[in-house]
């Protein structure tokens, strides 16, 4: 052991640097189940406050759904708590295989393999299916977990400008000499709430003999008429070679992820993906909960329909109040404030009005694109949204940004 004062001081200095730069992250402690109404301790040590949650990935309101909780209890009773093994030694139960089959059917793919998280799925999939003779061409705004997976893979990396199909085509032409080409995108981009043009991407991939990987974590369960994901929205079901997605957002929100797609690619992950080989898979209690989620989603589209209505109501309300929004039609609705300090002050003022919505700023989003990212849920009722709209409007008036353009807000608060 060696942790002398100078080592401690090194880290203290780095952490102080984060505080000084205003990018030190702090957790807010929630003392209730995840839902539209939550009880929060913030700052640490203060008394609990009841607030409306406008920033969870609980898109379908299933995180604390009574049927899901009951199924998880049953799973705990019948399959125990932990596996104490990775999948291929003695860590696979019948319900893990059942969840893989249910996911395959839901997504309309050929096969599925579970991972401890979608972060792990993305970390493992590239190295499992590509070699140094191949190329990975990713949208420049893909999620950090895809970037990490690309870094871990020996194939050549390249990028195309966000959602720019002409640029993607140039890159596909440039890399025709590689053995394999894999195009990589998010289905719904989590910071802006826009969707990848999957119909055009599928056409380009067919034209230039490339595979397509879509991370549909902010989509599975609610995008598309029956909630299958962005591939359903764009009419390309069955044409995406690899879908990675999570059970940690709309599908109950607990934990776990998967790679779903072409049979051989999934089998390659089963043989070679390191997070699958060297880590326990999803705990039985969670598997049982997600199986119930699929029951709920396949018997009715009621929840995703309600989410769609809520998102439209919320977006219209904010527009009418005079906020600058990012265009889109998903339940991610970014309220643009441009200045990092304004985003933080706005978030704090919202909290004082009983609304929990956090500010995002550089380096999570590009410089001078600070925002409050709001996320809708089927767990929201109209009274939640009306209260939240009233709070946003009150705080917007206080900061004098309602009806102002991007340039006017920047002129007043800086970039």
């Amino acid at each position, binding site marked *: 052991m060696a942790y002398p004062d100078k080592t401690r001081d090194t880290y203290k200095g780095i952490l102080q640097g984060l505080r000084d730069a205003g990018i030190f992250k702090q957790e807010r402690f929630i003392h209730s189940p995840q839902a539209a109404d939550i009880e929060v301790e913030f700052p640490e040590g203060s008394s609990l406050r009841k607030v409306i949650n406008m920033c969870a990935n609980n898109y379908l309101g299933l995180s604390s759904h009574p049927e899901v909780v009951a199924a998880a209890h049953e799973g705990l009773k019948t399959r125990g708590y932990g596996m104490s093994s990775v999948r291929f030694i003695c860590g696979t139960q019948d319900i893990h295989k059942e969840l893989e089959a249910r996911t395959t059917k839901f997504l309309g793919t050929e096969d599925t393999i579970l991972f401890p998280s979608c972060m792990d799925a993305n970390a493992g999939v590239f190295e499992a299916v590509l070699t140094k003779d191949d190329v990975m061409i*990713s949208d420049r705004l893909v999620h950090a977990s895809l*970037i990490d997976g*690309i870094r871990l893979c020996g194939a*050549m*990396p*390249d*990028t195309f400008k966000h959602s720019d199909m002409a640029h993607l085509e140039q*890159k596909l032409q*440039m*890399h025709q000499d590689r053995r394999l080409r894999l195009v990589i995108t998010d289905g719904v981009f989590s910071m802006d709430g826009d969707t990848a043009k999957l119909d055009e991407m599928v056409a380009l991939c067919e034209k230039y003999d490339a595979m397509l990987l879509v991370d549909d974590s902010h989509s599975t369960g609610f995008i598309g008429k029956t909630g299958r994901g962005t591939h359903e929205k764009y009419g390309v079901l069955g044409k995406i070679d690899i879908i990675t997605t999570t059970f940690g957002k709309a599908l109950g929100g607990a934990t776990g992820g998967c790679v779903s797609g072409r049979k051989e690619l999934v089998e390659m992950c089963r043989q070679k993906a390191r997070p699958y080989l060297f880590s326990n898979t999803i705990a039985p209690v969670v598997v049982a909960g997600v199986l119930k989620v699929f029951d709920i989603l396949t018997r009715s589209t009621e929840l995703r329909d309600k989410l769609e209505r809520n998102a439209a109501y919320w977006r219209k309300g904010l527009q009418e109040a005079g906020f600058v929004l990012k265009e889109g039609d998903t339940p991610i609705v970014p309220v643009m404030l441009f200045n990092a300090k304004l985003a933080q002050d706005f978030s704090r003022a919202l909290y004082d009005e009983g609304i929990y919505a956090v500010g995002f700023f550089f380096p999570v989003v590009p410089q001078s694109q600070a925002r409050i990212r709001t996320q809708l849920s089927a767990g929201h009722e109209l009274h939640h949204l009306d209260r939240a709209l009233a709070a946003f409007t009150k705080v917007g008036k206080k900061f004098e940004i309602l009806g102002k353009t991007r340039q006017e807000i920047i002129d007043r608060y800086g970039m």
Partner: protein
Amino acid sequence: MADELKDIVLKYVTAEYLEDGADPLAYDTPLISGGIVDSFSMVSLKRFLENKYKISIPDDQATPEAFDTVDKIAILVRRFTQA
């Protein structure tokens, strides 16, 4: 003084990496250390140069330092085209 090779590289880097409305690049603008070109995108810049000038730049010479400005890229490319 005008330099055709540098202008070709500058035009490519501007079209490929610069966001609309960003300040224009100069021959000595730091590209990689300045955060304009990330490590993934550096690979396609290398491919562009290799295809355009019919050269092969060994990976151990395609370092972030050697690619950090248009000036430095021109020195690197000329080393191979004149070899």
